[in-house]
């Protein structure tokens, strides 16, 4: 006689240290085995899109900071690009260079958190502290520039809120010199650590066609092996001037598209970001960062969809203007929102402990999922 078994429903979250915020996962389990995972979101819904309709265009910028709060520069960047497209204004070279440097620094800072928490969730606590030390360096650079450490409101429509500090270039170069060896150290500590590989290789494999069909983007898509990066695919700002590679998952220690691949893409991307910063930092032209800021921002009637490559993937702003001073509709295509959809697919047939590794490798921020 076969043993009678029953499935159990287990709630992971909304208050759980490794759900990276207020996310509830409804796990249907049979023993340790996952049968299905249902994410429940919305605990952090702050009505961004409704608020944006009541604000003028520049007033929306501080709210965009609070979407993906680990990559606030990138959020500002996408929004101002969308509005500038609607307005059809030219941006001074100096502003473009500074924006790119800030966005790339932010990418490193954000990936550092992603890598650190991914490791910490699995049990590697030492790298966590090392990486947060380096992130601190970047946050000080931002603090020096605009006074804020997390929510910057730095990029304005047509310009920037502050010019860079006279010491900024020197300190950024110092950071690059300091950070390169840290990546080597990180690889020794965590990337090629046997326990870490055991926990992440061949876990949560995402095939490429599934990834595209689910709309995944950023490291999640690239981890599955497609060389797709909005900076290259649909160049915005001045990204077409820089040489950089787009790292993809190769399946070095397991199958292509597993958790380790997604993790390693982030490590390689940090090096590429350093590369872009190095190319940009010495060529910042002189100029006034506020000269192109329009006095009155009232875009003509029309719609625009602008997308940028945020650390977590393709961040898009769909804005409809009805010719007024406030947007008629702002829709955010949040990368984490789309990437999280694939969670249910990835977890099937894995163990409960793997859910944490998979979620960590997706690198979600609930701020932008719930908006």
């Amino acid at each position: 006689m076969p043993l009678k078994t029953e499935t159990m429903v287990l709630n992971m979250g909304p208050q759980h240290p490794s759900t990276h915020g207020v996310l509830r996962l409804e796990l249907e389990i049979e023993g340790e085995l996952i049968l299905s995972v249902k994410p429940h979101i919305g605990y952090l819904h702050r009505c961004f899109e409704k608020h944006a309709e009541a604000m003028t265009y520049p007033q929306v910028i501080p709210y965009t900071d609070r979407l993906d709060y680990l990559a606030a520069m990138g959020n500002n960047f996408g929004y101002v690009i969308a509005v500038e497209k609607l307005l059809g204004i030219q941006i001074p070279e100096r502003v473009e260079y500074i924006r790119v440097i800030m966005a790339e620094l932010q990418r490193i800072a954000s990936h550092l958190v992603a890598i650190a928490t991914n490791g910490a969730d699995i049990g590697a606590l030492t790298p966590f502290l090392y990486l947060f030390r380096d992130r601190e360096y970047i946050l000080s650079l931002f603090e020096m520039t605009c006074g804020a450490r997390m929510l910057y409101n730095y990029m304005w429509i047509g310009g920037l809120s502050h010019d860079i500090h006279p010491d900024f270039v020197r300190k950024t170069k110092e950071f690059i010199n300091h950070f390169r060896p840290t990546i080597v150290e990180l690889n020794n500590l965590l990337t090629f650590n046997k326990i870490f590989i055991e926990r992440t290789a061949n876990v949560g494999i995402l095939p490429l066609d599934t990834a595209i069909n689910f709309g995944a983007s950023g490291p999640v898509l690239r981890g599955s092996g497609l060389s797709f990066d909005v900076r290259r695919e649909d160049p915005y700002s001045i990204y077409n001037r820089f040489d950089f590679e787009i790292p993809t998952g190769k399946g070095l220690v397991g199958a292509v598209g597993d958790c380790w691949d997604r993790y390693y893409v982030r490590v390689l991307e940090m090096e590429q970001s350093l590369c872009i910063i190095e190319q940009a930092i010495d060529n910042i032209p002189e100029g006034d960062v506020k000269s192109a800021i329009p006095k009155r921002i009232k875009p003509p009637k029309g719609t625009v969809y602008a997308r940028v490559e945020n650390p977590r993937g393709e961040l898009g702003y769909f804005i409809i203007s009805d010719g007024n001073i406030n947007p008629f509709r702002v829709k955010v295509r949040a990368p984490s929102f789309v990437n999280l959809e694939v969670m249910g697919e990835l977890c099937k047939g894995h163990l409960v402990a793997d859910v944490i590794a998979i979620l960590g490798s997706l690198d979600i921020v609930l701020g932008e999922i719930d908006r």
Partner: protein
Amino acid sequence: MKNPEEIFELLKSEFGNTILGLEKETPTEPIITVDPMQINKVGLFLRNNNTLKFDSLMVLSGVDDANGTKIKDEDGTEMISGGTLSVYYHLHSTNLKHKITLKVSTPRETPQVESVYNVWRTSDWHEREAFDMFGIIFLNHPDLRRILMPYDWEAGYPLRKDYKNPEFYKGMKVPY
């Protein structure tokens, strides 16, 4: 790689009157308007055709066009009657690198649009969000529930232009 005019001509020859028109006004990117009850077929064609290959849905967004007649209640709140709700589909081909925007409009009182769940799986949550925020019913969607708002939110659809905050939700005061 095809430009929007060519894509429009191709769709027009394949589907005839289902394709309602091509909007081209700067600064807007060109938008092809489609019949809401045929969007699934059009989507499948766009994805499977070898010269188009739109394999990726970047974003699906609901919009309240607010183009109906505005009626003022006695207490000064505005209601909109008639007009349309719209859904925008921003498509992209990872292979052929072209982009296109589709739009469907549906009457505000009975907003119904075919789901594209079976074409682009990513539309699952996007459609749930459009349902949650605008009350647009996506036909044949397997799991059309609220997603960002509480499952038992009864005060309507928040992103509609005539939405009014309720006084209380389960005994908790809503306006702060």
